[in-house]
């Protein structure tokens, strides 16, 4: 049993992806990462990741999948923030 209906999670994730789509690639991914990491309950994230693992996420935007991978790796060097997606680099 998924924590929340999977279709709902995919819709929400893609909506977030739609918003950040106009940014350059790295910031586009970072915007989605920051949002998933700091606004979503971890059980929602986990259910979404399980869906991606199980299906490959054919209906999920590519940059959302990249962001999900970053959240799972949990290596981002920045704290939560509001505002435009940061341009991350090795020293940030």
């Amino acid at each position, binding site marked *: *049993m*998924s*924590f*929340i*209906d999977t279709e*709902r999670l995919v819709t*929400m994730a893609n*909506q*977030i992806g*739609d*918003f950040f*789509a*106009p*940014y350059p690639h790295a910031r586009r991914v970072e915007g989605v990462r920051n*949002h998933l*990491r*700091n*606004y*979503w*309950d*971890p*059980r*929602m994230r986990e259910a979404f990741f399980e869906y991606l693992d199980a299906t490959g996420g054919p209906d999920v935007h590519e940059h959302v999948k990249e962001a999900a991978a970053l959240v799972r790796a949990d290596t981002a060097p920045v*704290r*939560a*923030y*509001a*505002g*435009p997606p940061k341009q991350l680099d090795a020293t940030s």
Partner: protein
Amino acid sequence: MPIPVKPDNSVVTTCAYCGVGCGFKAETHEGRVVRMVPWKEGKANHGHSCVKGRFAFDYYAHPDRIRTPMIRASIDEPWQEVDWPTAFAHAASELHRLQDTYGRGSVGAVSSSRCTNEEIFLMQKFARVALRNNNIDNCSRICHSPTQFGLSATLGAGAASQHFDSVLQADVVLVVGANPTEGHPVFGSMMKRAVRRGAKLLVIDPRRTETVDSPHCRAEVHLALRPGTNVLVLNSVAHVVVTERLYDEEFVRARCDWDDFQLWMGLVGDERYSPEVVGPEAGLDPEDIRRLARIYASGPKSTIYYGLGVTEHSQGSTGVMCLGNLTMACGMVGREGVGVNPLRGQGNVQGGSCLGSWPHMLTGYRFVTDPEVRGSFEAEWRIELDSEPGLRLPNMFDAATAGTFKGIYIQGEDPVQSDPNRHHVEAALRSMECVIVQDLYLSETAKFAHVFLPGSSSLEKDGTFTNAERRVSMVRQVVEPLGGLADWQITVGLMNAMGYECHYDHPSEILDEIARTSPAYSGMSFEKIEKLGSVQWPCNTDAPEGTEVLHTVQFPRGKGSFMLTQYVPTRERTDDQYPLLLTTGRILSQYNVGTQTRRTANLAWHDEDVLEISAGDAAARGLATGDRARISSRYGSTELTVRISERVNPGIVYTTFHFAHTMVNNLTSNLDDWATNCPEYKVTAVDVVKAAAHAGVGS
């Protein structure tokens, strides 16, 4: 009792209806409120009032009030009256049982913007220290959560930049998705005063409201856009600002991130946002978009006021960002007569936003995932806090229908009547094992409750409200709580029953705790508010008496941030089956879902929700004013009385949502804002047909 009754006592307090927060002198006779007199010293209202604050106060003593706690094992059983200790013990026992069975995160809480700052603060504290999770939300989730998100993203503070009086210094007033003459009448009157003095009025709204055209108040430009196209149209306004070089380059270079400004110019300057492309899609004359943009940009003092017509969309947060971007681009922020200002629906929505009643943020809009922020609260509360975001209210309901969320404590809210997709909300509540409702009456939501805790109205307790201009004003007890306890005392009682010991002798001690933990409130106290009359946050060592205008020198993050606001059309579309777009709003004499005002003589002015429809659409369906019509969407249906109106364009229908039996939220979808899950109340594809003679109301 002679009429007029001569009062034997009076107390100055703050109205709990809309976000204007008018000061009133509440007069009593033998312990009962007999009159509400607008208070001339009130800094938000200067002695003015509307028909809600002035006359609609009898609700507090209505026979429907519940005065005794009640419990029941299932929602199919009758209520059993109990004393307060029994109710607290039962509720705590049930919440513990659910957490032991289904996990710590299987329960949550929701606070109310009809309650005081101190009560909202206690609700989020309850979730964090008693439930030991971050499953706490507030009712602005379904109205102004995009304001918090969108203004924080751009300007760095999720609140109005101005004080209300600032509008009197404006040369141009842009109203977007709001109808202040009905929704916020006292501010609406002030705005009309500015217009009478010569300010140009610009309105972006699907309807020709009283704000657009009424005696002494006529909009210079009215963009009656197609519902759902806010971001498209606002980007088009920005397109004109950018391509005609109407922006304030000096301001932007000095105060904003220049690189993001250039990115933004690239987006909105694209041909797809030119008025000539946008106009046909949004139902507008391109030249009107250009005129509006030129007037706004030329100021010299232009100000923006907006409402739920901006926020309650699938791009609600994006729409708010559009306004933040526009304000910065034209240098219309940081001084008197300019700025961007949300018109908050309920009396304390701003307080609900400020005081940490969010699943991802503690007070002052600081993330729970930030260890330093968490640490400051852990030191104050002497308990380790959950480091992960909790569930938003819509996601609590989503999880409940999936069988993974089992209990909720709802303070002063009626989500069955007010939240979108009523069927979904009812299914979620029905699936829970413990629903605790704290309210004045047996609301629609209370039908699904297992514990009922009789709450107190704003006339029955002490505390503070923060209005739409960030003004913190005193709420003073006028009469004794009818249920015996003020709302803050109820939450404290439940917190102790859950095993977290806490005690306050008076709400002033709670505000002291808020001040210790919340930078914007750090200089606040009951004593200071009593002395000054009211105080606008931020109130701290830099501004010990508060702050009227924000962003005067710099933005909270230093530079202002332009956000990229690409238009993404809503998935809610008209088709052959649902050819009309329904949008919703409110009327002067009733308030929100009507829980209070329907229980007063204000019913004489407005006793039912009606469907406004254009003459052409009505004729095509054989409808005349006064007929009953069945309105159907993809999610449900209901019946309303028809009123043919010139206020709505062909293809658009409109209604209010003040009456429970109307069940307008049967119709609305579960589509919501990408950033906040604020529901898309303002766009629902519907069909309208003449009602069968003996049809029921909702389904």
